[in-house]
């Protein structure tokens, strides 16, 4: 592998990593506030992608305009998920896994019924083409997605650290009982978290659909990616998630550069297994900065 290929893989992996950060944040926020693992996370993103595809092929609008639409479209589901998660029995982590395994199957069936098993891609011409920068070829679509993802993540960071509701969400995540004792409305904070996380998932879905083909069973890989990132970064550490996301994107790009794209999914699963074994404590540690 030449030095140029290596540099190319590093850059495009880092761009992809910004998107992974956006994708993993929704998972890790819900885990932080509810101590529940949402295995249907990836399926929700795929659903957002399909909605985006459907609107794009019907209207011909620029995909970036559809990002907020798909984000808003998942809001009702956020309330359904919250209603279900409120009723989870102990041990919450395990029972949430089982429940969302079922929800994931349900979502896959619905997507299969609505869009059949066909592969879909938002192949907008405005996203193809590439820029050349110092001898490196940058895929324009990936660049736009990375910038969009960074903008959303940056906005979220400001929201969580500088606003009242953001502090309420972080406090609830850190210690629910203590937050409630201090007069924070933890139920409202939980609802905020769900709404926000589902918006992020819908937005991530549209961006994902411009990068990758969608298919109804494709969500599990995204879920595993989100779990890997959460293990690497810890729950609620926004900056660490960004670092971990970029690292994961680079690892993936190097895998693809060496072994071809067919090892991608397997490497994600392998990283999950190794990370779990290496860090056999719990995941939910709460937000800390």
């Amino acid at each position: 592998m030449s030095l140029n290929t290596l540099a190319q893989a590093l850059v495009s992996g880092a761009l992809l990593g910004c998107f992974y950060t956006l994708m993993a944040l929704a998972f890790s926020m819900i885990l932080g506030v509810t101590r529940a693992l949402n295995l249907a996370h990836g399926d929700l993103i795929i659903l957002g992608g399909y909605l985006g595809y459907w609107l794009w092929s019907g209207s011909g609008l620029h995909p970036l305009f559809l990002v907020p639409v798909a984000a808003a479209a998942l809001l009702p589901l956020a309330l359904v998920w919250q209603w279900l998660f409120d009723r989870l029995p102990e041990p919450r982590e395990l029972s949430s896994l089982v429940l969302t395994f079922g929800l994931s199957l349900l979502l896959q069936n619905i997507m299969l019924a609505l869009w059949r098993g066909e592969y879909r891609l938002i192949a907008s011409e405005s996203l193809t083409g590439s820029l050349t920068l110092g001898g490196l070829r940058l895929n324009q679509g990936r660049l736009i997605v990375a910038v969009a993802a960074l903008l959303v993540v940056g906005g979220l960071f400001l929201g969580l650290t500088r606003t009242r509701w953001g502090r309420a969400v972080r406090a609830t995540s850190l210690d629910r009982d203590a937050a409630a004792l201090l007069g924070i409305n933890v139920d409202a904070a939980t609802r905020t978290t769900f709404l926000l996380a589902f918006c992020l998932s819908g937005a991530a879905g549209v961006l994902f659909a411009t990068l990758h083909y969608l298919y109804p069973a494709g969500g599990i890989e995204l879920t595993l990616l989100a779990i890997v990132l959460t293990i690497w970064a810890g729950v609620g550490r926004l900056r660490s998630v960004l670092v971990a996301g970029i690292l994961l994107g680079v690892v993936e790009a190097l895998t693809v550069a060496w072994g071809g794209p067919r090892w991608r999914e397997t490497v994600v699963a392998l990283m999950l297994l190794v990370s779990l074994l290496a860090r056999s404590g719990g995941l939910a540690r709460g937000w800390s900065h």
Partner: protein
Amino acid sequence: MGRPGRIGLGLVAAALVVLPPLTGFHPYYLYLVSTALLFGTVATSWNLLAYAGQISFGHAAFFGLGGYGAALASLAGLSPWLAIALGGGIGALGAAGIGLASARLRGAYLALATLAYAEIWRGVAHNWTTVSGGGEGLIGIPPLPTLGWLPLDFTRGRAGSYYLSLAFLVVVVAVFWGMLHSRLGLAFAAVREEEERASLLGVHPLPWKILAFALSGFFSALAGGLYVHMVGVVEPDLIFSRYFSILPLVMATFGGLHTLLGPAMAALGLYLVSELLLHPYVPAFHQLPYALALIVVVLYLPGGLSGLFTRKPRGAA
């Protein structure tokens, strides 16, 4: 089990034994019920592992290892009976391996590790083309041979695999019963309920965990080996499919965690409702019962997963 229960069980068993002649050895129905019986076998072996406190999200790994092992052995010229047994051994080894590696993981994190484990094997089967045939898989796996000392109708074609899958289910249920009524069951329950206290009392948890994994993996892999001989092909996405991880979990928890017959009954019921009632009319939604059963079990049915850690197992006597 009370007397009515025993009579009911006897009736179900008798109905299953005489089903093939009743349907005139109809290949499609025999295939469907055989698959349901195999799911019953995997669900019961899933339950065996759950009895020792380990919730698996990756039984597709064991099912698929057994399937590939048996297919390769059969294609290499081994008799299908030996090939299926060999596949079972490979599945047991694969299961013991993940049990050993994840010795320190509990609950949800063990579940995630097994989920990843199954995905890894699917990837290996996809990519190790020289052995596994890659994405296209392997074809031409011979059917089970007929047995000369039995009437031809009962061992030929689908009927042979039907009776073998029924036999597997009976054996795994018998093993589960034996486990419940022996020191093995006590050791598993001790590991499940109070791991630390058990180790203080001299029950070292790790060997029991690995044994539970190996037993569970063995029977799931036997089912996988028989399955590939039934369908004649083996493909990564078919045999390492996530459904072989999801469905045993659904069936076992829906039928009753830690109960002797619940998982097998739920497997037969759910699978046949899905394939016979829903698939012909609403094909896109024929898997709906599994998803709904899982959601209902977690949220409303007492003795679901929470019973695993807080209550005495139901139906253990």
